[in-house]
């Protein structure tokens, strides 16, 4: 490192690394993970809601909280899966990073 470590050094270094970076191209889409997990959780908790005992419902102030939470989580999971279906992540065209910089 020279006496002055200026912004030009940092910018050059980061730009080079960003050109070589592979993250953008091979990122798995997190929407699939959130969607999948919440659908699974949602189904399990909804089933727990359908089979809830009176003791469960009494404990939760008379609300079938498993059913409501399960349905909510299921809807959120489906929302992410639908979003993924409707707007799939476009793989960045090769060389796009360099032209942006």
């Amino acid at each position: 490192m020279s006496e002055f470590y200026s912004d030009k050094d940092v910018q050059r270094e980061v730009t080079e690394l960003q050109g070589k970076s592979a993250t953008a191209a091979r990122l798995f889409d997190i929407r699939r993970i959130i969607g999948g997990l919440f659908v699974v959780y949602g189904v399990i908790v909804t089933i727990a809601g359908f089979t809830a005992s009176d003791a469960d419902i009494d404990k939760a102030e008379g609300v079938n909280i498993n059913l409501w939470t399960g349905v909510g989580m299921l809807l959120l999971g489906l929302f992410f899966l639908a979003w993924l279906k409707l707007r799939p992540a476009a793989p960045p065209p090769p060389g796009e990073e360099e032209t942006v910089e």
Partner: protein
Amino acid sequence: MKTSLDFFLSGRSLPAWVTGLAFIAANLGATEILGMAANSAQYGVYTTHWYWIGAIPAMVFLGLVMMPFYYGSKVRSVPEFLLLRFDKGAHLLSSILFAFAAILIAGVNLYALAIVVEALLGWPEWVAIVVAGFFVLAYITLGGLSSAIYNEVLQFFVILAALIPIAVLGLKKVGGWDGLSDSLTESRGADFMTSWGGTGIGSDNPLGANWLTIVLGLGFVLSFGYWTTNFAEVQRALSAKNLSAAQRTPLIAAFPKIFIVFLVMIPGLVAAVLVPKIGTSGSDLQYNDAIPYLMAQLLPNGVLGIAVTGLLAAFMAGMAANVSSFNTVFTTDIWAKYVVRGREDEYYVRFGRLITAIGVFASIGTAFLARSFSNIMAYLQTLFSFFNVPMFVVFIIGMFWKRASMKSGFWGLLVGTTAAMINYFVLYKQGIVDIPSDQGANFVSAIAGFVAGAVVMVAVSLFTAPKPAEELQGLVYGTTSPGMAEPPAPGDEAWYRKPALLGWGAIVLAAACYIPFSF
């Protein structure tokens, strides 16, 4: 995972909604959830200040004003910005202070996790600390910042799925908001259910703070210090794919932040109704136990499992955020610039993995240190007042005053940190000045650190040489560097992606939220 940039900043490639949710989740750790519920059980609706004035303005400022300089200058960390703006002294000092603080804070999160795991699952504290430490270690070493961020986004939703049922059932149990309000007004007085009641200067309230220390200490100094210069937060925005996404990161996070207060405050208030003696010697329950207590009282199997998962997720998010920012600062700012320079990029990725492991082991150590403090939230705010506030003053002056000299950064940071520590350890702990509570003392430490740092910076600047103007392009307000003028990405012209609209929208919404709690 090809380069160090992939490992430390996800290759600057993530979309704004991902970084925005990671930004809020990194903050929504264990200490936040348990601590703010505890705050509410103890102080009541004053808790809203930590959100509406103590977070939103700073988040909007970060997005609208500071992010162009952070992201546009292409720095990889907050200390690296100080290297460009000031000199190596400021850089090295800030890197070391940050690395130190990150490990202490990661330890607090780890300890908080252990408390809850012990309460809910019956594991001994040390087993929980070690197991959780290894969990975080595994996923950060494998995937770097990307896995930390992806976990955070997922955790954000799991945390909501845990907190919403607790808040809803809790309210139902005490007869809705009106029932809650009536019963607490009767037992704790009318001010307990307002944001500003009893905060006049000279009047007495449980928080030990008046409106001026709330606005200046919490709303300005502590909050701006935390949100704008704490690298554990800023790192999320720096990993965004372009400047517009980086600016929107804290702004997208601001909207959930406005409403999350209800999810932590309501359980705290409900606990204060159900267990009137909570936190006093008349009850086994500590303030920190408010949420675990309600979980055990209200949730049946099923949702209870989700809630336990959500809390564990929150603990890991808070710890992972600190560990992933620690490894970045230690590798790119300390190791690669002062110890082993100029090696190939792969070396620094390997070193980053190694230092992650060391960081996790050190956090396990500091978790046992955190055990010796009775109120972890106050401990945490004390750490912020020592470490974030002086960093913030150096930043704000460096960013807005181009005359601030190269040497002033180092001295401002050093004196600011020392002043905050002197206020806390000498003036407050030795009883030289009378401040009623730890939280109140933290507000004063923050203001002392800020003022001392600012005065020293101005004084040093007047006697030392400024940085040449051409070196300051893109680092000081009113200048731009060539790298900053990125063309907007397709779709970023849409009105709902305009940073100014998002930012001002959040401010107006937060101000409006105060109205029903002010009279």
